[in-house]
């Protein structure tokens, strides 16, 4: 799915991201952990070609993400509010993203309906612009909009941080089933090592821009992370 070689991004001479080699495969749920400033969000932005890398290459299905734009058709992301058009209502935003993915309004309506539990009656048909929603609800809108095109690569930055407990658990289930049902490659960053170890099939631990651990998810990963973060 994604092949990274010699990726390097520096700010004022300091490495923000430095990854020599990394491959991501379909069907994987990758949990990205690391303390603040480890370079998680910068890495995500590099994956989406939102910042210019100093060195290296990122290939998506074998094509450079800078030279081509085809990756946009199967890649979706939600990093922050910068991915929401805040003067639209949620419905309008879904229709907009849906249309770009060749979905009709009816398709979008059907799709949204399957997530009504996740939305908890707080999003649809409220007559509010996205900018007037709470941060948690904006996050829900962003996540569902990212799912609209049934992407093959999904990038979520700290999705658990702003959600209420029920939604966090629902999201864990959603991510797991999407990866198995649709063979999606999902990358999730989080500070919640509980959720991350539960949801991920593979965990990448970042420190000062580099990936210092690349381990399989599960209980063993959980205790390894506890050990790592305790020292700090």
């Amino acid at each position, binding site marked *: 799915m994604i092949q990274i070689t010699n990726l390097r991004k520096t700010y004022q001479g300091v490495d923000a991201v430095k990854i020599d080699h990394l491959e991501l495969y379909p069907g994987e749920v990758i949990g990205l952990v690391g303390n603040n400033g480890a370079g998680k969000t910068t890495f995500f932005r590099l994956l989406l070609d939102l910042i210019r890398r100093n060195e290296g290459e990122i290939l998506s299905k074998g094509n450079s993400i800078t030279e081509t734009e085809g990756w946009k*058709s199967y890649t979706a992301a939600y990093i922050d*509010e910068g991915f929401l*058009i*805040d003067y639209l209502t949620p419905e309008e935003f879904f229709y907009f993203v849906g*249309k770009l993915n060749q979905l009709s309004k009816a398709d979008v309506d059907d799709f949204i309906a399957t997530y009504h539990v996740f939305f908890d009656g707080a999003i649809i048909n409220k*007559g509010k612009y996205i900018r007037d929603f709470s941060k948690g609800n904006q996050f829900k809108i962003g996540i569902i909009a990212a799912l609209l095109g049934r992407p093959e690569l999904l990038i979520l930055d700290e999705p658990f941080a702003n959600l209420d407990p029920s939604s966090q658990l629902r999201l864990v289930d959603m991510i797991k089933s999407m990866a198995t049902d649709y063979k999606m490659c999902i990358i999730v960053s989080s500070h919640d090592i509980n959720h991350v170890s539960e949801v991920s099939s593979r965990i990448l631990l970042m420190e000062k821009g580099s990936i210092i651990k690349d381990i399989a998810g599960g209980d063993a990963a959980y205790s390894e992370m506890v050990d790592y973060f305790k020292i700090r």
Partner: protein
Amino acid sequence: MNLSVFLSHQWLNFWRSRNANKSLVIQIILGFFYLLIFIEIAALGIALPFILKEKMAATNPISIYTSYLIYYFLIGLLARFQFQELPSLSIQPYLTQNIQRKYMLRFLNTRSLIHFINFLPIFAFIPFTLVVVLPAYGAMAAICFCVALFALVLNNHFLNMYIKRKTVNNAWFFFAVLVFIAALKGLDYLKLLSFEKASSSLFLSILHYPLLCLIPVAFALFIFTVNNRYLKSHLYIEELVTEKKRKGGKSFAFLDRLGDIGEMIALDLKLIFRNKRPKSLVILSAVLLLYGFMFYPKYIATNNDAMLFFFALMIIGIFIANYGQFLFSWQSSHFDGMMTYNTNMHQYIKAKFSLFLTVCTLQFLIASFYGLLSWRIVPIQLAAYLYSVGVNSFVTIYVSTYNYKYIDLRKSASMNFQGIGAMQWLQSLAITFGPALLFFLLNRFAGFWYAIIVVSLPGIIGLVFHEAIINWLVKQFNFRKHKILEGFRER
């Protein structure tokens, strides 16, 4: 916690805001610009009494001056609707602090008074009072006259604050007052009812019976109290700022047929109509359509085709210039998203061009009615239209790829220089003065029709080869894409 602390915070807020960190050159240009406006207004204010004295020697300058005061205050109210903001949000961080409400109210009221519009009367009233009223009626009358006028300014000020706080939809009120003023002027013009005379006699009576100035003072106090009481009982951020109306629903169904590009244009239209700053710019573009009535007749009479062309460019091209100067910046708050949604840049840029083309065509069609003034207007406007869509639109898109500045959509447009860089100034010069100069030279040395054809030609070429130009623009955009994104993330 006294007032000066609040105000010093505001002062810091002004100087430390993101957009205050502009380059020195821009600061100097802006400073010069402000100074120029200031000097002009001061000079006009000081010269006014002398002009009136000289030109209207036969009639009484005071009666002329006072007859227009009614319009001054009405138009002032209108201007306030448009330009004056409620400073409500600035108290948000203080609400949870140990500060008594009355201090916050005092701050809100004082803060709202510090506004450009409230400093104008100093120049409009005081020189006139000193030069004309004082010698004729004496000190007592002059002082009371001034007191009455300033009381009316405050009256307008707090009335506007109150209306803005009370009503959700200012636009309706704005047009009501506009129609009211037009009706007054119309009745005056048709000599049915003279409000100018009424205005004059009202203010003259203050000069004869100075104590009458207490009436406007009482009015001002009354509206101030009403406003204050309302504020006191609504000192919650949500009640002070949010609108209660149900949002959304308005869609542009006719654009559906255009596919993804139509969807992008609809997005731009929603951006315009749902956000303060672009909305006021577009309203300005619509108002500018009326400028023809002001300028065309004069230059038709003097056969000055170059000036006609210059104003035609302004009238028809203003949307491109106004909206286009921040073409990508308007979307700066969600540009990360725009760059990852499932679209390609060609489509994105083409949608921008199509928006320009659509609106500009609309402006051209409406402006065509000016052809009734003189047939020469028709070819001149056609040339201006072709130049605008075929050249200026692409130039504007190109220049936009150099604009890395974030824009907050919700701030109002007046005196808002957020996101303006040196490029924008150069651009606005280049896209109006350049072709106007070309037209002037050709018209003078080669003839009217040569000028029309030569100026239209690049526009036609641009339209014919628009696909190729868009491809080139996409390349230009991609060169600077990361820089734009980085700039937009800096808030």
